[in-house]
Every structure is written in structure tokens, then in C-alpha cells.
């Protein structure tokens, strides 16, 4: 058996009895190998300071592994992982000494054949977009990230975060308002 043959939930749903097989095939190590980057970036988008992302990625996967038996293979995996990342990030933030960090390590944009100015502009765009995202309240931001950036559906989001669909929907609306306001504010400042 190849351990990394992670059954994609979308496909699983098409096969009766595939759920058990999926659970058996889903290996923790393979999930880390395949979705480690996803969790890492989810924590980053949730506003975890870059110095803490590694530790929190560890804690997130540990929590995921402990709840392994609870994974519903008919549902997409990533929103489920995101739910753990959100809890870990929220717990982390509750400790007063942790501050939300807006600036962050610059992404490695070398080797893309861009001019230096373009790269700087791109970095600045990313910094501002990240700042706008951080302006959205955390529980709303979670729904917003899943919907707008990850492309999850509202029912998927509701299931992953254990909230009613109506709540997910209203958080998304409020998040869009927050985000839009932040974008306008930042755009104004740039003039």
C-alpha cells in the first residue's frame, strides 16, 4: 500500500463503502507531508506571528492526530484541518504577550524573472493585502479565508468550524464588510 494515497474526499463520496478505506489509507505522516504547507499558511493568514508558526503547526497536527478517529472522510480534509489551526491560533492569541503581527518575513520572490521594482511592488501589495486581512475579526476571518481564499462552500465551512450555516453566512458578510473597509482605508493612505 502506498501510504500517501490520500483519498480525496470529493472522490470518496462517489464510492459506497469508500469511507472506511479512506480512513485506513489516510496516514498521519502523509497528511503532514501533503498539507503541512496548507496549515502553515492558514496559521499565517490567521495572524500568527511568523516566529511562532512552526510551533503552532506542530501543535495543530498533534491536535489533528489526536482527533483522527473523528475525521469524516466524506468531507473535504482542508477545512477540517483549518478548524484545528483556528483553535490553536485563537488559544495562542489569548495569551496576552502574543501580539498580532502585521509585518512578516518577505516571501521569496527571487527567480521569477521580475524586475526589482516589480518585486518590491508585489511585496508591498502582499503586505497591504495581509494587513487588510488582519483587520477582519478572527472568527469572521476564518470563514472569509475558507470561502474566499480556499474556495470552500458555506456548508463545508459550517461543518468544519462546527457552526450553523446561517452563522457562517453572516460571518462571511461581515468579514467582507470589514475587509472592504480596510481596503478602502489602506488605498486612501496610499494616495
Amino acid at each position: 500500500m502506498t501510504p500517501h494515497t490520500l483519498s480525496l474526499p470529493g472522490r470518496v463520496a462517489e464510492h459506497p463503502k469508500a469511507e472506511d478505506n479512506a480512513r485506513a489509507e489516510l496516514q498521519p505522516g502523509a497528511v503532514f507531508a501533503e498539507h503541512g504547507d496548507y496549515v502553515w499558511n492558514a496559521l499565517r493568514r490567521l495572524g500568527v506571528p511568523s516566529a511562532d508558526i512552526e510551533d503552532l503547526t506542530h501543535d495543530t497536527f498533534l491536535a489533528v492526530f489526536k482527533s483522527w478517529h473523528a475525521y469524516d472522510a466524506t468531507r473535504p480534509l482542508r477545512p477540517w484541518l483549518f478548524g484545528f489551526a483556528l483553535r490553536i491560533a485563537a488559544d495562542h492569541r489569548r495569551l496576552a504577550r502574543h501580539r498580532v503581527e502585521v509585518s512578516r518575513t518577505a516571501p521569496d520572490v527571487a527567480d521569477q524573472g521580475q524586475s526589482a521594482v516589480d518585486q518590491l511592488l508585489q511585496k508591498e501589495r502582499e503586505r497591504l493585502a495581509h494587513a487588510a486581512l488582519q483587520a477582519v475579526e478572527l472568527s469572521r476571518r476564518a470563514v472569509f479565508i475558507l470561502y474566499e481564499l480556499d474556495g470552500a462552500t458555506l456548508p463545508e465551512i459550517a461543518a468544519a468550524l462546527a457552526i450553523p450555516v446561517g452563522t457562517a453566512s453572516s460571518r462571511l458578510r461581515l468579514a467582507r464588510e470589514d475587509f472592504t473597509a480596510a481596503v478602502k482605508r489602506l488605498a486612501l493612505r496610499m494616495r
Partner: protein
Amino acid sequence: MIDETPLIEPWLRTLRDDVQPMSADARGRLALRLASASVLAVAAPALATSLRRGFWYSRAFTAAVALPLGVVMGAAGHAYLVTSPAPVVKSVPAVSPPVAAPSAQAPRAVVEAAPAPPALGAAASAAPATPRAATAPTVKSEATPPSLEIELSLLERAKSKLSENQPQATLELLREHRARYPSSALQQEREALVIRALLAAGRRAEAKRRAQTFVRSYPSSALRGSVERATETIP
């Protein structure tokens, strides 16, 4: 209501595109720490078993982690990684021997390299062998990360000595681990075991002191709770 979508869409696009892969170092450290969760029974027992015999020692794990681990363990590997556009060839040195006819071991090596999942970023490209790999057939042993297994098995032996109620032997093994891997990614895990062994040896005051140091050094550690619980009754 005004539709604000055109306004925010470019910003969303920027955010969607801004996905950073974790560094190879971080990936190696995390894989090691997560693999060790079973050794220290941080994970649920049933899962611990699957962690032990499952993916972590499998070929896909090797492909995914062998190189990042090499980076953690050695500066030379790091320099190679940073400077080489195709660093992963180093982790699969036996893939294509220089001789035309494949040797006995070669097909096995190919099988090992092949299952690398596609979503692994740099490490994933381990699968397609390049001719350059053939220039270093002598380092075949690198196809598996022996240091990972040694390091983990050392901790595992320490833990089993503890469960056999031989705290002295546990502490000796942990001292050895510390000497061999002073800047190990598993320092938290090692220290938590030391504290348990000190308790088992009746050296409670010492255990308490180290537990306090542990909490100061690793305030957000996943092991913090168990360390605090173990030593909370000590005055």
C-alpha cells in the same frame, strides 16, 4: 447596495497567490517532532501505533523528509540545498547507477523514490532522477535517514527503560542523546522525559526545578501540561 467585489477582488487575488512553502529546515524539524509524538505517547495510543509502523519509516516519508533532515543535521547539506537548483537528487543517489545495466539494488531504489507525493514542493521532485545523481553512487545509505531512526530509537529506548522502572538507565540514555544531538529538534521531548525519569528516581526537587525551566523555555509547548501536572504536587 453597491457591489464591492471589483474593489476587493485584486486584493483577494494577491492573498490567494501569496502562499509560502515552509522551509526545508522547518519541514524536517516538524516531521521529526511529529514522528516522535508516538515515542513519548503524546498522541493517542492507537494513533501512536500507526505513527510508528506507518508512514514515518516508509519510503514516501524518506523521500519527503530525508533531505530536509539532512539539512537540519548538516551544514554541508544546507549549502548544497541553497546553491543547487535541483537539490533533491542527493537524497536518491542510487536511482541511476552509471553502469548501463541496473545493479541488483537499483530497481529497489527507484521504487523508493517513485511514490513521492506531488504536493511536497521541492522535496517532491525527488522522483525524477537526474544523471547527476549517478556521480555519487557510494552514498547509497543516504537513501534512508539513519540519523532519524537512531535519534528516535534512542528516545524510544529511554522511554522503555522508564516504563521498566529503570530511571537511571533512562537518564543515561537521555544524556547520550543530549551529547549526540545537542541542538536536536526534539529537545522539548527529551527534557520532558528527563523530568519524568527524575520523578521516577525520587529526585523530586530536581524534577521540579527542571519543570519550571521547561515552562519558561517552552511556554507554548504541547508537552507543558503534562510536565506541569507531573510536578504540581511538589512544593
